């Protein structure tokens, strides 16, 4: 019995180690390579741990490019997209979950269809539409597009979280005289916090990494987001690999920071001890 538990433990530990290596090795390699000299980055004999150490790529990207402009633009667009997506998703998911109305299921599945719809097909129509209403070259254009793409799936995710909240809790609140608004704000949202944290990260990442629409809808350099700005400065015929690597590291930092900040909500149990 002890032997069996021991073997299970080893097996699980090994599995976790393998998964961690598979997932984290590319990131680890990108990070270590971003500190290598240009010669070492492209050398035929690959090194995992840098033989050389240099900050020149970071210096170049931070002080000789518009990195901070792109960073601020990305932060503005991503935070607003995330914020609006959360408001819309919470409202829509709760409505679809609780309100019984004609066509409820149709709306629910339609949302999924819009998520599955390839966005690239909408590229030119959206460009022409935004041109007509003078939204080209604005943050609003990108925020609308990001919300458009992030919200449908976020609604589905959040609806699944809402389903896990026992109805008894809501009913108890109604018996105590709470209104629907109070129930939503005081009970549902706090209990669905892990779900909201999940969709917040999901929406942020969707907006943070969005490239295609950002490159089409924005023309002015001062409004470009990080993926578009970095793609332009890396070059086509000649690639500055150090620039590329340090850019990738710096571009992922805000997402990691956000995850560290919101991640704690994942740890708490959803409705642990709520109903006895």
């Amino acid at each position, binding site marked *: 019995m002890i032997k069996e538990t021991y073997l299970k433990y080893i097996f699980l530990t090994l599995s976790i180690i393998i998964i961690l290596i598979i997932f984290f090795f590319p990131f680890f390699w990108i990070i270590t390579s971003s500190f290598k000299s240009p010669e070492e980055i492209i050398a035929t004999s690959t090194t995992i741990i840098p033989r050389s150490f240099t900050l020149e790529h970071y210096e170049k990207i931070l002080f000789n490019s518009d990195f901070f402009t792109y960073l601020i633009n990305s932060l503005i667009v991503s935070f607003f997209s995330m914020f609006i997506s959360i408001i819309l998703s919470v409202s829509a998911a709760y409505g679809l979950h609780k309100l019984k109305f004609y066509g409820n299921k149709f709306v629910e599945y339609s949302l999924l269809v819009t998520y599955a719809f390839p966005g690239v097909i909408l590229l030119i129509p959206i460009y022409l539409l935004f041109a007509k209403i003078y939204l080209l070259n604005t943050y609003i254009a990108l925020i609308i597009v990001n919300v458009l793409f992030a919200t449908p799936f976020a609604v589905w995710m959040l609806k699944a979280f809402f389903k896990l909240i026992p109805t008894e809790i809501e009913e108890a609140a109604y018996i105590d005289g709470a209104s629907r608004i109070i129930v939503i704000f005081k009970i549902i949202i706090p209990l669905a916090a892990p779900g909201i944290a999940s969709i917040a990260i999901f929406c942020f990442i969707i907006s943070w990494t969005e490239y295609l629409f950002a490159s089409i809808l924005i023309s002015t350099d001062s409004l470009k987001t990080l993926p578009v700005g970095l793609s332009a400065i890396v070059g*086509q*015929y*000649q*690639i500055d690999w150090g620039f590329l690597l340090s850019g990738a590291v710096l571009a992922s930092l805000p997402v990691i920071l956000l995850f560290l900040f919101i991640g704690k909500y994942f740890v708490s149990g959803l409705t642990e001890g709520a109903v006895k």
Partner: protein
Amino acid sequence: MNKILLFIISILFSFNALAVTNVTFWHMEGVPHRVDRIQTLIDEFNSANPDINVTQEVQNWGEIYAKAPASVAAGTAPEILVGIPDFTPILAEMGAAQPVEDFVAELDSKYGFYQKALDQYTYNGHTWAVPLWNMALSVWYRKSDFEKAGISPPKTWSDLKKAAKTLTKDGVYGIGLPGNKQLYTDQTIYSFMVNSGAEEIYNSDGTLRFDNPETVAAYDVYKELYQYSAPDAANWTWGEAEACFASKGCAMILQFTVISTYDSQAGGDADDLGVIQIPYANGKAHRAGTVSYVNSAMIMTEDPAKMEASKKFLSYLMEPGNYGRFINMEPGLFLPITEAGSKDSTYWDDPVVVKYKSQVETMLDNSTRGSLFGFTNGNTFTSISSISAQNLLAQTLQLTLIDGKSPSDAVTEGMEIMSEAIE
């Protein structure tokens, strides 16, 4: 009353004097030092021409094919758009790119365009863009590698095959050739086609003449050479090939230039860097040439004031004294396309150009014999955009390199695919 009238007229005149014509300049050279160089020239131009305000907006090559037509349809197109030859027919057909033959003739009389540069933009009775700079593929190699192996730089395909075979040893690939379905592969295979006499894609009536023995010979030699290339070459673009050469992983590569990467990442020994013309098929020395991409500026406005301002700005860029600085935004990559530009001291005085002068001279010489598929001898048809946009030359190459078909079958199938694409 007269005084009031006079006052109004003088106000109107002063407004007119203050009127500034805005010109937006879209280009795809987003590397920071290139943007800075262009900005310097724009600032100089704007301060010398207070009635014109030029602003640059950097775009990406990957999206410009979708964005530019969309911007035309939406009425938000820039006044000047930098492009390459296979992009121009799309915008010319839309009525967006304006004919500029008179303006080009004026510049030609002053600075003397190389004819090959004009060929890529002259068709349907008009010149559709102002050539700005050239890029042409050459073979890059290390002289010391050849000396060590006891071989001379190749001139013919036989020499090239021998060199690639001899130099493939000790983890080094004799030649780095891409096999990706991408523009770089289009360029490399076409440079072999040029050197076997298959530079014409079209007959004069617009039908395709791709499937011919010369094309098959080019695909055949490419396939033979590909065995000496790196195993990951099927995914290469320009950057990977350059990195392979700079890291001494590849003994030879076909590239527009390697100078800046070689200088910053590979020791920068100018005496050891060799550059030659792409080798030609045996017995076809008279066919020696390469693939070249003349980048140009399309004028996208019909507004007379904006058009005039755009021309003034482009004339400014083409002027010796400015031109060298303009194309040296990336020294050793962009080559002059005018006689005057080739002699411009601001071009030759750049420290990188001074250091790699002999290599730049060879590149420049090669570029004057450059052609581009679909833009040769006046046999230019707008349908070429469908062939180049889908990288069908590269796709045909993959039929033989990856799918294992014979070069002859691949070319036949490739022509069928092209025929469908241009229908």
